């Protein structure tokens, strides 16, 4: 581990001068960004602005081209960083749920617990049941993903991430693939996590949700953070023309 050279863990997530290119296309052009312990940060911005890429760099699903990322003070861009161990501490929820369709809900929740955390089966099942209860789907424990509604699938995906007892959660537009009438139940679950003090980084187009629960809103455009601040300021009184234009379009 590289804790010796790491700065004190004042932030859950700290991103310094992050650049990311796909071939010739620079998608992130120098991002500086933090999420404090227990903080809820919503990232907004137009399509293609690099929100997903930033989120995916934080657990290294994408390799940063340059820059540094610290998780709890540990430099995860360091060549010696244990990426698998890191990821098991960061829950991730995808727009398209990505449940494992060949496994029951219970096995979706226990697989990584057993294989990564080496939890004995009874304990893994115990944890899975507790987290299914948290998202209100205890009765679906033996169902297969294909038999669940989109909203239910996303709640199971959240329970799956929570079953690893993560220090923080990343959400990439968790409600964008849902029918409008199913958005509420997912946001409900996320609100509960906020109340429990979970550290969260949420890419979202749900401005109402951001206004209500975010400690901070970050507006990205063209691969940079244009402005950030408390939701009432960013959403109601943005300082930058690009932010204003974006909000006019989505509100």
């Amino acid at each position, binding site marked *: 581990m590289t804790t010796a050279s790491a700065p004190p863990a004042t932030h859950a997530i700290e991103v310094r001068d992050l650049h990311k290119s796909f071939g010739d296309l620079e998608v992130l052009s120098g991002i500086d960004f933090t999420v404090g312990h227990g903080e809820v940060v919503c990232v907004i911005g137009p399509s293609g602005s690099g929100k997903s890429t930033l989120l995916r760099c934080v657990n290294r*699903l994408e390799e940063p081209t340059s820059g540094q990322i610290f998780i709890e003070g540990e430099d995860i861009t360091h060549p010696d960083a244990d990426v*698998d161990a890191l990821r098991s501490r960061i829950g*991730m929820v995808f727009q398209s749920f*990505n449940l*494992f369709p*060949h496994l029951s809900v219970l096995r979706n929740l226990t697989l990584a617990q057993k294989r*990564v955390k080496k939890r004995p089966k009874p304990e893994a099942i115990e944890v899975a049941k507790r987290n299914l209860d948290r998202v209100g789907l205890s009765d679906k424990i033996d169902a297969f993903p294909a038999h669940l509604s989109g909203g239910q699938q996303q709640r199971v995906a959240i329970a799956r991430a929570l079953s690893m007892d993560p220090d923080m959660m990343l959400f990439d537009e968790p409600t964008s693939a849902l029918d409008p009438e199913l958005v509420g139940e997912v946001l409900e679950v996320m609100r509960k996590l906020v109340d429990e003090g979970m550290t969260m980084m949420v890419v979202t187009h749900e401005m109402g949700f951001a206004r209500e629960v975010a400690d901070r809103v970050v507006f990205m455009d063209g691969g940079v953070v244009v402005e950030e601040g408390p939701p009432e300021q960013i959403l109601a009184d943005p300082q930058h023309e690009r932010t204003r234009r974006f909000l006019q379009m989505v509100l």
Partner: protein
Amino acid sequence: MTKRQRQRLVRGALYAVFVLVVLVVSLVADWPRIQHSFFNLEIAAEMFPRVVTVAARNTLLYTFLAFTFGLGLGLLLALMRLSTIGPYRWFARIYIEIFRGLPALLTIFLVGFGLPIAFGVRWNILVYITLGLGLVSAAYMAETIRAGIEGVPKGQMEAARSLGMSYSRAMMSVVIPQGFRIVIPPLTNELVLLIKDTSLLFVLGTTATTMELLKYGRDLLNQRFNPTPLIVVGLVYLAITVPMTQLVGVLERRNQRAR
């Protein structure tokens, strides 16, 4: 004449032609002779139970051995083909190109006669059979399996990795099981081809106890100077392969519905 009437006339004519051909053939054909040559019940009866207990059993055994070996090697080659390490990728590509491009018989000769000459080894014939057929089918199965693995949405690997699973763990527990569901129909087709390819094994000089279906039928044909054994053996092949191709159809339809 309306269009409809004309259509009916054409259909009627086509039926008539069919009936006529069947009639002529059945009148012209020398039925007693055909029956004696191809459906000689006496000779057919003699073949039982050996055609099942020895010949069919060996065919199935060789198929099983080659399929198991080919599946294992094919999976390995598929993973190599998808590897980020260049030399693995190249090796798999070259292997697949070579063994798909060669006649299966050449590979069987190479294994069955080339290896013993080159290395002075005398292995059990089952080893030559497994290698001779398995090396070829591995090349075909590798491409099938690779397509299956690539058919699993990328999000599955990402979800597994984001939970902390290593690449190989994610492959084993998440991607490969789903990939296999996709490739069961084409793999079953592979199996049917393999069953038929066991008929090439006669070149290895199989004996009375190791002969498979076709060799058994051919030997009897020569002994009795009558083609009935080939018909019987053919029916045994069909009894094995037709249910499997039917199964492929069912599986494919089910896969389609699951999408």
